[in-house]
């Protein structure tokens, strides 16, 4: 009985932390962007502007929920749900600490994460198609090509970590980093994974599916109210997910001296979320052909090289 209660507490706790964290990130991101761009950001509502989240929520929930008459209504409603569901499901395999986490010991943990990220492509693609709008369609097609390409390097970048650990389970991977974080032997894998992670969550500089100076708002041009909000929250949950995965795979997960494991996990993940936001403030957006060429001509050879070198080193030892 206690076990079931603990399991339920785990699930509800992680779900709440994620949704609240994603909502808070909308404010944190704007404050940090303001800081890095020498302006103030939202600082009026509540202490340091922290109640801006509440104001935004009230506004977005009470906006008119509009489905364009030319859209495909069922797919149009389904699309924003897919991104939330896929991102939240992927968190099922994230081991926050040895005891907190829903299925951190799942023997196909990494593969489950890859499966869920590959399913999240559908939300953007279907949103673009169902909107029946040329800008949306172009955004959806860009997203499909970009995310399917970068998924390949994302998967290949993880192989080095899996080879060193000998397991697909994320909890095993964290335990294998007791002496040395994998970022040292797998530095190339870490770089490739992080860049692929940015492309997967279609964040700046890789946000071409919603490039506003050429496509309106891209795939979510026709979305309003909470459906738009779900794309937004889904994107932030995606950022948290990729940051958490970087921490687990390359930075020793919950491990660290003095502080309790959950704090270490939160600090490390928060640092990478902040880095994601810094990238948005610092880097310009590439052209679309540059993005694809960069992926296939640089990232793919690099990730294959990483696998070959890791294999060679492991064989000689």
């Amino acid at each position: 009985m206690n076990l079931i209660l603990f399991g339920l507490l785990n699930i509800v706790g992680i779900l709440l932390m994620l949704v609240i964290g994603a909502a808070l990130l909308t404010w944190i991101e704007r404050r940090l962007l303001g800081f890095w761009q020498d302006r103030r950001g939202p600082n009026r509502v509540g202490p340091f502007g922290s109640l801006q989240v509440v104001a935004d929520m009230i506004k977005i929930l009470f906006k008119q929920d509009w489905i364009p008459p030319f859209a495909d209504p069922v797919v149009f409603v389904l699309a924003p749900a897919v991104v939330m569901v896929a991102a939240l499901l992927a968190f099922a395999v994230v081991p926050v600490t040895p005891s907190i986490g829903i299925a951190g010991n799942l023997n196909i943990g990494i593969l489950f994460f890859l499966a869920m990220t590959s399913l999240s492509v559908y939300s953007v693609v279907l949103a673009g198609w169902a909107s029946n709008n040329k800008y949306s369609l172009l955004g959806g097609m860009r997203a499909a090509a970009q995310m399917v390409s970068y998924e390949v390097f994302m998967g290949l970048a993880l192989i080095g970590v899996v080879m060193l650990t000998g397991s697909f389970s994320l909890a095993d991977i964290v335990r294998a980093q007791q002496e040395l974080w994998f970022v040292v032997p797998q530095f190339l894998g870490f770089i490739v994974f992080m860049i692929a992670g940015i492309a997967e969550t279609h964040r700046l500089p890789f946000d071409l599916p919603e490039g506003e100076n050429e496509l309106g708002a891209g795939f979510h041009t026709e979305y309003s109210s909470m459906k738009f909000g779900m794309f937004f929250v889904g994107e932030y949950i995606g950022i948290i997910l990729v940051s958490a995965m970087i921490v687990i795979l390359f930075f020793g997960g919950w491990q660290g001296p003095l502080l309790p494991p959950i704090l270490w996990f939160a600090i490390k993940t928060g640092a990478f979320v902040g880095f994601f936001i810094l990238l948005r403030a610092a880097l310009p957006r590439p052209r679309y052909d540059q993005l694809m060429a960069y992926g296939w001509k640089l990232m793919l050879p690099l990730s294959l090289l990483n696998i070959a070198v890791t294999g060679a080193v492991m064989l000689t030892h």
Partner: protein
Amino acid sequence: MNATFYLSAAIAVLSTVLVITRANGVHALLYLVVSLLAVALVFFTLGAPFAAALEVIVYAGAIMVLFVFVVMMMNLGDAAAVREARWMEPKIWVGPSILAILLTAQLAYMLDSNTMSQPHHAIVPARAVGIAMYGPYLLCVELASMLLLAALVGAYRLAHTEHGRL
């Protein structure tokens, strides 16, 4: 485990039927995605988590995205759905129905005579799959990789025409 097996199997069959009967291309493809996800769950309940994960990553997550991509690019619209619906006349169903009934009869006979082994619930880990692939089935892996390389070269050749060389 049995209940999840039968539920996902039923969803797989139902969504596959809907793939055939939908006139709208994208809707049919979405049902195909659901069907593939249900089959992945069937694999999982039968004790093959590795195959289940690959089913989702490769089929539902990559190949079907490309299918949807192509259908989106053609931007068929309502006219195509109407034409598609017209093709679904009763006469069309005769041939496939006969074949399907034959297969169903075969399946019923096999179930009745109990020649099928019961599904054993030993879990196949990823390591065992890898050892099998690079042990007894090495030749098949090599052949498949050659086939994929040929497809890659062919696709490169087909796409590479803009410099006046055909």
